[in-house]
């Protein structure tokens, strides 16, 4: 019975239509697994340690967030991912188009070609291929939140017409001017709530990965948030002077719930790290990385485990772009 499609059961037609439109079937989890194995439900990032931690790479049908201080390498990672998605399957790519929504005008085609030439020289040496790969990346530059919302709405048509295999939004936080308001009365409406659910439903519907980037903001003292039953912080030494700047991800806790995977880019102890801060698939691990001509590469494929409040904390210490 569970293998029957819902639209074949005697449901009222209005309900059946909704189910059919959204492809809801009484899928057993085993069938999901078989589908996943068959269609390769991941976009490999070419960073072996990260791919292993994420059981294959950036997952399809889910929203992945990259968050970190400015200049740390999020856009470089996005450029590499968009390149990987355009490559043919024999090179580990998705062989499809990419929609790159660039809100801060940071997309650099020259840099992307440079990454391509250095990571896949055999493909990029031949003239026509570089043009073909770059031609598969569609760059949209919305200038405001309403512009962005409009381009999202039109995206469904683009998705159907072209073989889009990856959507990147770089960055989400730039569209929101100022902080998410913290009002003392009543619930707040998060300005990005519609784009969030729209991006997730697109990811699910088209079975593609969606990657968004986020910024950081500094953490004020009243933000060591606790539940009422936890009582006051009895640890007074926590409130003494912090030597490093403490940063947290922007866009608030409602956004943090909405993303499926969160990769934190941070810098401390003289290195930069990619930390898997939220993932249903893996424990919190951090990998050191560097940015070089071929994009991002990991210094070590063995991650270090992270636990507790360290997972959500973002360090920005010793990160000096002039000291490269």
């Amino acid at each position, binding site marked *: 019975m569970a293998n029957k499609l819902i639209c074949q059961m005697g449901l009222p037609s209005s309900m059946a239509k*909704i189910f059919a439109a959204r492809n809801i079937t009484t899928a057993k989890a085993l069938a999901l697994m078989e589908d996943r194995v068959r269609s390769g439900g991941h976009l490999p990032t070419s960073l072996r340690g990260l791919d292993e931690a994420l059981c294959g790479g950036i997952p399809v049908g*889910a929203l992945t967030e990259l968050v970190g201080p400015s200049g740390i390498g999020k856009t470089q990672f996005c450029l590499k991912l968009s390149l990987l998605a355009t490559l043919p399957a024999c090179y580990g790519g998705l062989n499809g188009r990419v929609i790159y929504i660039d809100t801060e005008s940071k997309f650099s085609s020259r840099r992307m070609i440079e990454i391509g030439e250095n990571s896949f020289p055999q493909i990029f040496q031949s003239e026509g291929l570089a043009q073909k790969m770059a031609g598969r990346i569609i760059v949209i530059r919305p200038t405001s939140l309403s512009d962005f919302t409009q381009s999202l709405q039109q995206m469904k048509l683009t998705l159907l017409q072209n073989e889009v295999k990856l959507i990147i939004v770089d960055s989400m936080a730039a569209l929101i001017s100022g902080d998410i308001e913290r009002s003392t009365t009543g619930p707040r409406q998060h300005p990005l709530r519609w784009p969030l659910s729209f991006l997730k439903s697109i990811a699910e519907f088209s079975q593609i990965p969606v990657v968004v980037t986020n910024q950081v903001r500094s953490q004020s003292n*009243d933000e060591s*948030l606790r539940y009422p039953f936890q009582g006051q912080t009895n640890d007074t030494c926590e409130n003494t002077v912090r030597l490093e700047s403490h940063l947290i991800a922007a866009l608030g806790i409602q956004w943090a719930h909405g993303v499926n995977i*969160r990769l934190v880019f941070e810098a401390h102890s003289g290195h930069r790290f990619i930390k898997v801060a939220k993932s249903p698939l893996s424990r919190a691990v951090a990998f050191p990385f560097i940015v070089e001509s071929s994009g991002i590469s990991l210094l070590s494929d063995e991650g270090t485990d992270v636990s507790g409040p360290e997972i959500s904390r973002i360090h920005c210490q010793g990160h000096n772009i002039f000291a490269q």
Partner: protein
Amino acid sequence: MEIANLPIPPSQRAKLLAAGYTTFSSLSSISPSQLSRGAQTAWDMLSEEQMQKHITTGCEDLDAILGGGIHCKEVTEVGGVPGIGKTQFGIQLAINVQIPVAYGGHGGKAVYIDTEGSFMVERAYQIAEGCVSDILDSFTDHNRDFSACQDKLQPNSFLANIFYFRVCSYTEQIAVINYLENFLTEQKDVKIIIIDSVTFHFRQDFDDLALRTRVLGGMSLKLMKLAKTHNLAVVLLNQVTTKFTEGSFQLTLALGDSWSHSCTNRVILYWNGNDRYAYIDKSPSLPSASAPFSVTGKGIRNATSHCKRVRMM
């Protein structure tokens, strides 16, 4: 003697006929409580409850403060900050409910309603493998013949018993819950319904909050009815938000105050230092207590090393 000829008020006669009693003799052996169709004495309920098995969470400390595990016939809400392990908890319960009866479990099936896309099937496979290996480890020294059950102990068969629904809007969420009434009459083995998370679409799509409260209230009543009629557990995973109380911002579960009344039990997962803890925030029969747990490659397990004490609040 026919009921139709009895000198009783017509409304009572109609009710007896509607219930199927046509002759006087059919009534002679019925007790008042059976006739009242649904009301039970507290003593009957107690004996029923004592026979109920609970669904283990995989962590002994957590089972202990929950009184054995997640209760059937009740709605339990589990909330926590992002990344604390709510989805892990949900997947672990979906696997643990399938532990065969011979090994002390329910041998049932699970319904997993995913509103956020956080159910990763590879992780469910890992947790199923972990569950199977733990069962085999703890039962190796028994002499009883478990070979028949051991065929069922394949991770793939665990996955095959999880009915997975992915919903993308609040109307779909309500439609699926309505659909479950029919689904459960056909699939009688389902012992747990997990909704991960119940909050997501209700925070995104609603502008009219009074409407939201009404819709949520209706949904929670339906879920309670499903839990009671089909004797299964309902676990709702919830998100957190900040609330300004007593002069400062504090964490609280989302969806508002009216929703907080809807669930029978509430468990909050939180960070205490570097460890994950679970706290019983609301329960009709259990005292407030918190217990540590950890999320391992095999799923939810006991906390490692130093923090083993269950703390009573």
